């Protein structure tokens, strides 16, 4: 039962609940018109304390497609936070107006804190480098749409695997399904954290390998998950400049990949995927964006109790 629940981290959802959301999202992809009024009379607040055009618009579009309304702010300067209001007070106030809140905040743990003071469900739309559960749902809906299911895949994660929260969440999510293997491709400075290996991969008995060159392993992959080296995750700009171009996917590398491999990316990209790759039928990152909206539609309609 998802009605009235907060979604703070991907693990808040059971495998069955993920299946339920993915199945509903698939129905919405096939026949969106059938769902255009399911949230009529409901209000979504999008509280974005840091800019994120894509995620915010995706949430807002999702609610509008369901027939609901949206209100909110797109950066902290337009909120009472700029006057020194606490997050708890902002949440107490807003949650008395609306039916569901999607919140992004640069501080880790902000969504959990908000959930303790909210009168309505909180959906974490990203809390710093911590959790971004609806991105994970987006990735899962995309994988199920394009690969037919969650089992038996070899998934390559490439780029910033140290700070990339989307990578950590997707690894955790895919560990819950049978027959998956992972290949982690990154520079030494940005390898997958040891706690993911110790606490997630090892207990689940998931086979994995590491590589430093994408072209050495790309031919083994069913799914390639590219990530951006995020400037805001670095304290030191020199480190960022040194590492940002480490792993670029181009047409030459795509020639080495399987014909049915899919390329995913949480976006926005900087230059880690060459624009020439966009026309390749295996490039699925813009489809992923669309599926993300349907994933959020399914989630909103479940959490608000409309479906």
């Amino acid at each position, binding site marked *: 039962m998802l009605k009235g629940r907060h979604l703070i981290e991907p693990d808040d959802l059971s495998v069955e609940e993920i299946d339920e959301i993915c199945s509903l999202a698939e129905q919405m992809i096939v026949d969106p018109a059938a769902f255009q009024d399911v949230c009529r009379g409901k209000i979504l607040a999008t509280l974005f304390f840091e800019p994120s055009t894509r995620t915010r618009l995706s949430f807002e579009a999702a609610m509008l497609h369901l027939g609901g309304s949206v209100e909110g702010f797109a950066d902290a300067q337009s909120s009472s936070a700029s006057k020194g209001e*606490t*997050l*708890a007070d902002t949440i107490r106030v807003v949650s008395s107006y609306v039916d569901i809140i999607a919140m992004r*905040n*640069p*501080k*880790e*743990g*902000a969504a*959990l*804190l908000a959930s303790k003071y909210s009168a309505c469900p909180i959906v974490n739309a990203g*809390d*710093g*480098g*911590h959790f971004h559960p609806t991105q994970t749902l987006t990735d899962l809906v995309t994988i199920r749409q394009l690969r037919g299911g969650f089992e038996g895949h070899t998934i390559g994660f490439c780029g910033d695997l140290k700070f990339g929260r989307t990578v950590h969440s997707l690894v955790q999510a895919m560990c819950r399904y049978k027959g998956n293997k992972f290949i982690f491709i990154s520079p030494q400075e940005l390898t997958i*954290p*040891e*706690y993911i290996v*110790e606490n997630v991969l090892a207990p689940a008995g998931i086979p994995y390998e590491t590589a430093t060159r994408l072209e050495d392993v790309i031919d083994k992959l069913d799914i390639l998950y590219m990530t951006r080296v995020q400037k805001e995750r670095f304290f030191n700009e020199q480190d960022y400049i040194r590492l940002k171009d480490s792993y670029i996917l181009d047409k030459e590398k795509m020639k080495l990949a399987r014909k049915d491999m899919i390329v995913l990316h949480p976006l926005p990209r900087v230059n880690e995927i060459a624009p020439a790759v966009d026309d390749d039928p295996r490039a699925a990152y813009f489809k992923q964006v669309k599926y993300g909206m349907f994933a959020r539609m399914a989630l909103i309609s479940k959490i608000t109790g409309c479906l």
Partner: protein
Amino acid sequence: MNVDTIKNGLVIDHIRAGSGWRIFKWLGLDSAPFTAALIMNVPSQKTGKKDIIKIDNIIDIDFSVLGFIDPNICVNIIKDEKIIRKINMELPTRVQNVFQCKNPRCITVTEHYVPSTFLLVDKKKALYRCEYCDALYTAGEGGYPVETRT
């Protein structure tokens, strides 16, 4: 050196030498309206030396915090000058407001009204995680936790 025996009160024994003052302060004994003694560097067979706190009153203590500061501590409850109960500390499953999260990105750093809460994740390694940001800490000597990266 002699300190009077206690009629009704508490003796906090086996405190790691040097940590006694922090516990004395944390319990508010420096401004208490009853007698309290902090005895430092007492010879100990087990550890060489230790600190002891004697409190001439039965006061409520959050044993979980005491266990976090030093799990080797033993609290003796004294009634009519006799030990009626010995309580051995252990690492608590949850500690609140004993220390602040050091992760600059943690929400508790800017939202000061939020109680800093840490949950025990590995008893053997004395490993705690921040409830909010999941930063890891190892319970350190005298309750000074060490930020830990795994």
